[in-house]
């Protein structure tokens, strides 16, 4: 039991541990870049702490209030076009970096959304977030943004479809077990 706890803790903390070691190395090697690193890290930390709390609160409420049957009906295996549209809309309305989408996707899986729709949600979160599009539009112009958006939406659907075909029972079972 103790050993298992230790293993879990290591699983959670090793990324931070390695990152801090590397950061120390960089700082020792180059103070200028080290200072820049601290600036960027503090900035992202502020941004993360600003954006994440409401996402997790909404996620907690969804977990408690939305019954499994409803999630299955709207985003489950047989939800069809409705499920796909919903996944794209939810991903586009999101805020925060892609890694914030992982816990969200996990709750959706747990509640009975299909793997394909969850993959579409992840894809939309990464490429069609509305606030980001506005920014892209003003910086890179309409032709670039619209072209990328159209091709990326096709790509999200294609990637989700391919992965849905490739991932077998064993992978699905492992993913679902983690979600529970």
């Amino acid at each position, binding site marked *: 039991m103790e050993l298992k706890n230790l293993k879990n803790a290591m699983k959670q903390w090793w990324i931070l541990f390695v990152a801090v070691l590397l950061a120390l190395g960089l700082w020792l090697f180059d103070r200028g870049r080290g200072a820049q690193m601290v600036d960027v*890290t503090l900035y992202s930390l502020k941004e993360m702490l600003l954006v994440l*709390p409401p996402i997790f609160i909404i996620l907690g409420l969804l*977990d408690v209030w939305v019954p499994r049957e409803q999630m299955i009906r709207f985003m489950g295996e047989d939800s069809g076009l409705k499920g796909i549209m919903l996944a794209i809309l939810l991903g586009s309305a999101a805020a925060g970096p892609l*890694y914030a989408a992982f816990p969200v996707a996990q709750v959706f899986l747990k509640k009975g959304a299909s793997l394909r729709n969850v993959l579409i949600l992840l894809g939309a979160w990464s*490429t069609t977030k509305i*606030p980001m599009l506005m920014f892209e539009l003003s910086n*890179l112009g309409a032709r*670039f943004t619209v072209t990328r958006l159209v091709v990326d939406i096709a790509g999200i659907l294609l990637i989700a479809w391919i992965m849905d075909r490739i991932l077998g029972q064993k992978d699905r079972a492992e993913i679902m077990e*983690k979600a529970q």
Partner: protein
Amino acid sequence: MITALIFYGLAAALLVVSFIKDREKTIKALKKAGKSFLNILPQFLGIIVFVGILLAVLDPQTISRILGKSSGVFGVLLASVVGAITLIPGFIAFPTAALLLKGGAGYMQMGAFVSSLMMVGVVTLPAEIGYFNRRMALLRNTLAYAFSLLVALVIGLVMAL
């Protein structure tokens, strides 16, 4: 900033409605929210420190130096690799891409950079594997990377019209 405000407003409104409807369920939801937040916090902190290191080493000037003169197929590949490895927030990435375009970089290269930046996450791969599984995370990132090259090609063609 505005997005954050909208999300806080939405969360607050939902919390109030939930609290009026069922106090206990609301407390349970908040506990779940807190628990999953604390669960991911170490990983997120790790990712953030990694991003800090990457952005200090691969700052916009360095990226400009790497991608500025790049062209052709090699430029596209280079841009997509830089995009896949880095995790730059949009408000830095887009102006950088715009500056690079003004400086003579190609649209195809910037398409590869922006698309792989958004869809592929090498730094976040361990977290993604942790949440789902190894095969799913590797598959998603590999397919997304390959797709970014296609996006680059299409953008290059459309912008040349």
